[in-house]
């Protein structure tokens, strides 16, 4: 299945792109997808452990299952206000 990883904040700057497409086996969890992303994107690998993840308006965690077409937003440490 294919998902889109959407990069925000400093991740986008350091990866040089706003999104990354990942080909994953069925029944992949968010944590497994992040592990694959670490290998594919060494420029941002060191930041992933501090990122929150969301799909739509829901925060998701490492154990959440992914589905075909999901857009997984990676949210680095925030600085609003």
């Amino acid at each position, binding site marked *: 299945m294919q998902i889109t990883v959407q990069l925000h*904040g400093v991740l986008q700057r350091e990866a040089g792109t706003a999104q990354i497409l990942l080909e994953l086996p069925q029944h992949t969890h968010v944590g497994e997808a992040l592990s694959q992303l670490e290998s594919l994107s060494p420029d941002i690998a060191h930041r992933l452990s501090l990122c*929150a993840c*969301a799909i739509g*308006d829901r925060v998701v965690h490492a154990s959440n299952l992914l589905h075909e077409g999901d857009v997984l*937003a990676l*949210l*680095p*440490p925030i600085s*609003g*206000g």
Partner: protein
Amino acid sequence: MHLTETPLDLEALLAQTADDSSGALVVFGGTVRLDDGVQAIDYTAYAPLAEKALAAIEAETLKKFDIRHCCLQHRIGRLALGELSVLVVVRAAHRGPAFEAARWAIDTLKARVPVWKEEHFRDGRQSFVEGQPLQTT
């Protein structure tokens, strides 16, 4: 909408929360300040979660404090020195709860709303503010 790319409109928020039974009005406004040569800040957000979090913080503030109204609004896009990035408007019968609620709301916004600041400096540098991990609970 709690996120906007247009200049924040305090008058609109005051009109929206106008209430003859409130004797206290507290407004907090965050502005872009001159710091180490910063001349502008780009604010970006993950809108689906930011909108949801801002609405939730308004509701929680209303429940947590003895207040009558709480409105939060955050601007995104490029802001110059002095421009407002965020507004918190609280109305209550009395000033004590109004001050406490406004403080709690902005502190909670900074912990739970996915917004990022990238600073642009006079010498041409640009740098994201380090920030804190998004609080999700």
